[in-house]
């Protein structure tokens, strides 16, 4: 780890109490960073928690993920609001690289359990972002009951995802009332964040499931190189990037005309746990692998092109008259040109959750995609992929979720304040 900019957790322990009171509004002044792009290069510094949009969406994708969804066990609206306030205060501290609570991890009274669990002591902020989303079940339960007086606030775009062909969803890895995406360049920082939020939540929420991701599979900035997924291919070359500001308004952020008010400036997250049968994939010839994806495995260039970012030519044909890019290749089926212009901001992570007991790695891609309206973006795209993508022979969707992620949190506000307003 390189020498970090900003402040160390240990150095700040004494200041933690004051930080709670001020909501760390003053933190930006400490930051040596000038903008999002420099954050991609600096893997240790903080990412500002407050802002117009939630951090962790267009923030240049960090290397590590700890994603968790929570079910709310409390039945009172006030209890949920208190929790969201507590979570927000903790999130502001943790993303700034600080311990939570008045005393933090090691400065409290010896007789009491420490307020902060402590495994991030001495670690830099490591670009931690915490992004919250609310699932349909948070607003209306399975029986249609209005749990917290929020039923009428359900955005039409927050639909229940339909069944896609081949879905083999495990209910214990799907859904959830609230999702929190923790991304960081240090895995321990990400785990620390989810662990402490889960702890604060006891009595109000229970963890429904959690997922670790060890490597990013998307770039969300042109300053980043394109990473590889567990098929060994570059993934996310054509992703929406933070530099595409006009396109982000069109494809990513909920606009005032979309409504509802509490979602304007926010985005919808679809999560899919995609198991890859990598052992089978690895027995597939290089040529077939490239045909299935539609890109060269080495360069990441579209088939028939030399460079990763060369424009894709969907009409190019081989000498035998067959298209260079197979009609059922992933790149073609997922491309906006064949999806009425719909795009996604992908932010997925590779995972290997041990092995499956049958001698195979429990490996895959934890797919995360943000968008302005899932009805026009993820759902039709996935319907097309589920029907015809050759890649389906090597993947299985085993977990799923959809969440409404509101706009950013202004200093002094809390997660979901507008939803509860």
């Amino acid at each position, binding site marked *: 780890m390189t020498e970090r900019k900003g402040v160390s957790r240990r150095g700040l322990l004494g200041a933690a109490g004051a930080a709670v009171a001020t909501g760390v509004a003053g933190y930006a002044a400490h930051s040596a960073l000038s903008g999002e792009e420099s954050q991609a290069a600096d893997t240790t510094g903080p990412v500002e928690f407050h802002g117009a949009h939630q951090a962790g969406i267009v923030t240049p994708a960090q290397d590590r993920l700890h994603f968790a969804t929570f079910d709310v*066990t409390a039945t009172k609206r006030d209890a949920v609001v208190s929790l969201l306030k507590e979570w927000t205060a903790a999130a502001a501290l943790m993303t700034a690289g600080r311990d939570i609570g008045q005393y933090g991890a090691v400065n*409290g*009274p*010896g*007789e*009491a*359990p420490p307020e902060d669990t402590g495994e991030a002591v001495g670690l830099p902020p490591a670009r931690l972002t915490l992004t919250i989303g609310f699932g349909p079940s948070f607003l209306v339960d399975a029986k249609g009951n209005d749990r917290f007086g929020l039923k009428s606030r359900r955005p039409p775009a927050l639909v229940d995802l339909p069944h896609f062909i081949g879905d083999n969803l495990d209910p214990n890895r799907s859904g959830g009332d609230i999702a929190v995406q923790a991304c960081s360049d240090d895995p321990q920082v990400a785990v620390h964040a989810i662990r402490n939020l889960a*702890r604060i939540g*006891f*009595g*109000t929420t*229970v963890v429904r499931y959690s997922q670790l991701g060890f490597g990013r599979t998307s770039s969300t900035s042109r300053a980043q190189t394109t990473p590889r997924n567990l098929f060994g291919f570059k993934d996310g070359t054509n992703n929406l990037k933070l530099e595409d500001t006009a396109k982000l308004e069109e494809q990513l952020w909920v606009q005032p005309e979309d409504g509802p008010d509490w979602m304007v400036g926010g985005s919808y997250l679809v999560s899919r746990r995609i198991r890859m049968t990598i052992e089978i994939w690895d027995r597939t010839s290089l040529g077939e692998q490239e045909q299935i994806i539609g890109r060269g495995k080495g360069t990441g260039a579209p088939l028939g092109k030399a460079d990763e970012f060369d424009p894709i030519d969907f009409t190019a044909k081989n000498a035998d008259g067959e298209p260079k890019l197979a009609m059922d290749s992933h790149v073609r089926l997922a491309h906006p040109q064949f999806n009425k212009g719909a795009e996604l901001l992908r932010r997925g992570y590779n995972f290997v959750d041990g092995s499956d007991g049958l001698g195979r790695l429990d490996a895959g891609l934890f797919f995360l995609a943000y968008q302005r309206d899932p009805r026009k973006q993820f759902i039709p795209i996935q319907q097309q992929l589920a029907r015809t993508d050759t890649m389906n022979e090597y993947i299985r969707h085993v977990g799923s979720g959809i969440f409404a992620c509101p706009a950013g949190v202004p200093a002094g506000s809390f997660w979901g304040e507008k939803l509860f307003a």
Partner: protein
Amino acid sequence: MITITVRRATAVAVPLLAGLLLAGCADDKTAAAPGDTTGPVAVKATDSECALSRGEVKSGTSTFSVSNGGSKVTEFYVYAEGDRVMGEVENIGPGLKRDLIVELPTGKYQAVCKPGMIGDGIRGDLNVTGAAAAQIDEDTALKQATESYQRYVNSQAIALEQKTTEFVQAVKGGDVAKAKELFPVSRTYWERIEPVAESFGDLDPKIDARVNDVEPGTEWTGYHRIEQALWEKNTTTGMEKYADQLLVDVKTVVAKAKVVKLNPLQLANGAKELLDEVATGKVTGEEDRYSHTDLWDFQANVEGSQAAVQALRPALQQRDAALVTTLDTNFKAVFAALDKYRVGDGFKPYTATEAEKKQLGAVVDALAEPVSKVAGVIAKK
């Protein structure tokens, strides 16, 4: 044998109470007639009622004369707010009469019979009238907390010895059915005060080790050794020596528990440890893996935790009233979750699905987190 629990406000009251205590034992007073405003309160406990000869007593020392006219073993408690145990009598068998002598300051209480020992019990209001109770300072509150909890430990220990004796007799007499019936009952008293018992060195493993807890070369003894024979092989054969050893070990624990001196932090940490036991051993079904009577232990651990926390209640109330509210709510939630598994005087065999275990785990976590904060609040100067 007469089990008597006395609550003393201060050390000064001891000689006086000791006198009353003796009187209660020797005379075995009959209850006062209805209409009396003084004298012992007669409690008619049956399987379905808990009738007090009067619902009002004067502040100071009161005697409750509990006769069990039902068919089940019962317990009698006087609870202050939050089910704080002011005094209790355990293990009152059918046809028996026991006295509870307890000092009650002015206020509102509940008198509770628990036929079958499990659950919320049959509750009635008890009004204690007189001059308003004097405000006590924090040190006094803490001192009273430990004294009150030590009395709780004492009465649990006595019942533990009684019920374990019965269990051991059943095992040695070859009565498999009776032994099976008494197994979870005798363990209830053990589980309520387990952190105290555990503090006495190697007795806990001898009494309560699971088969996988035993060091190679050491003989596996105790409750679970007998449990395995009872449920796996449906026999008591060969268990006689383990039964004898169990009673010897339990008697040693009981003797130590009766004179144990605790401080408020030990109460707080004990309350937390009992919930740790629930979370790690009971929710998972590891504790009573042959009999599946885990929920008895579960309930007993939570009751023991509540007894310790509520003993600290007056002190906690002064320091962190919000925490007290959370504790009350979350203790209730755990008992409510357990009630779903009740059948008759006990619990269904614990063979819960993963989803059910998750639900129980969630209510325990919800309680354990605030309980873990009690020690810090108590320690605050």
